[in-house]
């Protein structure tokens, strides 16, 4: 009696695990993959990150705002559907697409060949340099000066890749990987790290703190180009986004957004 009860429990558990595996492995069933799908669904679901000022942040009214957010709203307006925002962290961007939680990702998504193995990128709508930031009192001019220092990065970002590669060549650089930009900024302000990798917008973010004026840009690691991410199986949607970005470049909208949020004009954006 007891034996059979235990067996039922085991079977139940096995069925549950199997069910979870199956459902987690086939999340794409209900995805909108064409422009028409989105229009008939009556909304476009866009993944954003609100911890990446000035591209994505929470404004004083507790609403998402920033370069990426305004671009996302323009996309919804052009498609004639309301935008539903899904908040993701930097490592959550690709999973958000693959699991169908979002139709597209508009969140400082730098275009890399590695990422393009999993998802598809639009042509760039903005660009940003990855830089090393540190307190003014620390003397850093190149990666060599980072030896013996703790350097914080957001896991999996471009800065992570570049600084991890530098740490392999130069012994003594200790890389601390955090899950989001807010955490490395916290670590920087509390002195848990000596320097941090971030976008050159990071300056703006740190500047808001009480000790903001203590920090400065040390050197540029690399310039990245941001594209909108969509699932690989959505070429039609991708083509529409490319066309839309082209029109925004031509009518000066992107330059206006850049001046509004980044305070500097956009550099020339290449097309692929």
């Amino acid at each position, binding site marked *: 009696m007891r034996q059979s009860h235990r067996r039922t429990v085991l079977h139940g558990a096995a069925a549950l695990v199997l069910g979870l*595996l199956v459902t*987690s*492995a*086939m999340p*794409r069933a209900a995805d909108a993959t064409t422009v028409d799908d989105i229009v008939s669904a009556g909304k476009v679901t866009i993944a954003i990150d609100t911890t990446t000022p000035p591209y994505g942040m929470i404004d004083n009214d507790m609403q998402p705002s920033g370069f990426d957010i305004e671009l996302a709203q323009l996309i919804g307006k052009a498609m004639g559907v309301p935008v539903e925002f899904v908040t993701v962290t930097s*490592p959550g961007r*690709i*999973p958000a697409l*693959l699991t169908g939680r979002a139709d597209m990702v508009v969140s400082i998504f730098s275009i890399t060949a*590695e*990422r393009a*193995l*999993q998802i598809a990128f639009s042509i760039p709508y903005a660009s940003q340099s990855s830089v090393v930031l540190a307190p003014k009192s620390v003397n850093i001019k190149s990666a060599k000066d980072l030896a013996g220092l703790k350097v*914080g990065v957001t*896991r*999996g970002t471009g800065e*992570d890749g570049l600084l991890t590669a530098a740490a392999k060549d130069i012994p003594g650089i200790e890389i*601390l*990987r*955090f*899950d989001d930009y807010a*955490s490395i900024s*916290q*670590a920087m302000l*509390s*002195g*848990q790290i000596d320097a941090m990798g971030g976008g050159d917008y990071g300056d703006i973010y740190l500047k808001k703190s009480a000790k903001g004026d203590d920090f400065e840009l040390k050197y540029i690691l690399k310039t990245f180009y941001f594209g909108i991410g969509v699932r690989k*199986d959505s070429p039609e949607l991708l083509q529409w986004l490319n066309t839309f970005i082209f029109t925004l470049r031509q009518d000066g909208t992107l330059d206006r957004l850049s001046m509004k949020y980044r305070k500097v004009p956009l550099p020339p954006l290449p097309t692929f």
Partner: protein
Amino acid sequence: MNYVFQFGPIFRHSDELIYGAVRTMELTAASSAIGFVIGLAGALARSFGPIWLKRIVAVYVEIIRNTPLLVQLYFVFFSLPLMGVKLSSDQAAILALSIHLGAYAVEILRAGIQSIPGGQIEAAKSLGLSRRQIIRHVIVVPAARAVYPALTSQFILQLLGTSIVSAIAAEELTAVANNLAMQTFRNFEIYIVIAIIYFILVRACSLLFRLVSLVLFRWKA
């Protein structure tokens, strides 16, 4: 279902996964050991200590048990440095996890102590045992045996709880997995693999605890 599973890119990083699993066990072992000591001291203080000490332990237990572990981690790592206490990621993780487990261990062990019938203690008194002997042999050891399953399941929860310390840049299995996820973008495969590793670690620990109980508690009550 048109997702193609590819485990190859992950198994190429198996040495990193093993490193992560070892780090997870180190964090668990260190914080469980310290947490158990805190728990034992707290349970004794709360059961036999003076009233002011009982109050202090009660406040500690309530604060820790009513706040999230993640907030405690952030507090130790991001807030303490502003007061001049700067701990590395690993130190902060072990400290926060120990304090967290300690609060639960206090309550578990105290429950065990309360389960000892008064008659047993009176019997020990009438046999002429000293207060120290009674606390040790008649109360604490039988109490520990009574709550051993609850205590070990708290250790297991601790093992699983270490998975959030990557939030303060401490390295363990989940942090390694997140790094690999960002390198290979094989999120499904990676999280399936580390779920299996966690499962094996937990089963191994359960087995170990069972063996330990056979040695520690040979005699019948």
